[in-house]
């Protein structure tokens, strides 16, 4: 009984000195990549009209070139929030990343077929086979 009370007191004391807090607000700070691409920014690139050249002039160098230039992918990583771990007299915080990408697909005539916003993947799919 005496041991159980001591254990409970220990847990209570420890809980008062340690804390873990997830700060879920995306600050939007850039962890990797060259900047966030918004739907508004790619708005002028219309499917069936815009060419690969137009896309490159507007978005710059892609991060991945797949299928011989038929697919261009732009990637960036933002801060999606912070994990704070604190103890009495000290603490640490680490950002957790949010991976974002825009995928542009072109037809055989080099005109834009589709723009797709993706999230959650930092890795390349198939090995880039463009001529970059």
């Amino acid at each position, binding site marked *: 009984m005496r041991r159980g009370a001591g254990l409970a007191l220990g847990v209570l004391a420890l809980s008062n000195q340690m804390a873990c807090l997830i700060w879920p607000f995306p600050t939007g700070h850039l962890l990797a990549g*060259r900047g966030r691409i*918004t739907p508004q*920014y790619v708005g002028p690139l219309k499917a069936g009209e815009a060419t690969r050249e137009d896309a*490159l002039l507007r978005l710059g160098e892609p*991060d991945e070139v797949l299928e011989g*230039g038929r697919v261009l992918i732009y990637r960036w990583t933002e801060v999606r929030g912070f994990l704070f771990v604190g103890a009495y007299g000290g603490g640490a915080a680490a950002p957790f990343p949010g991976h974002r990408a825009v995928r542009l697909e072109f037809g055989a005539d080099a005109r834009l077929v589709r723009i797709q916003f993706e999230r959650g993947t930092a890795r390349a799919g198939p090995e880039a086979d463009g*001529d970059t």
Partner: protein
Amino acid sequence: MDQPPVSCHAMPGRRLPLRSPGLFLAVTLLAGCTPPLLRQAAPAELQAEWLAFLVTGKTTREEVLLRLGTPNAHLEGERILTYAFSRRASGARVHERRYQGKEGEVPAYWASGMENLVLVFAVDGKLIRHSLVVCE
């Protein structure tokens, strides 16, 4: 007859939205949190000294390669070249390269505040279009 503009302070029945404490707190917390966005440089920026040698219909690919060095990427053969630069506090630009991070990840630029110069050449090797994509 035109009415003079009416400010919010002149309307006693209307409260400013930021008087709400919760909204004020949210705006304060999120202020300055806008991530760097891409934008195309304005025509005046393309005429800056370091880009002044780029003249549409005149500058050749050879001149660009001699002046700026090896491009970061080339697409559609050598028709489209791209260069990546970062800007120092002094205003000087440094040619950047991609670095491999973790195994399997796409090589990325580590510098922040990147600028991306995209140059499109005609079949005869003359510059036909160019743009500077800025992250800020």
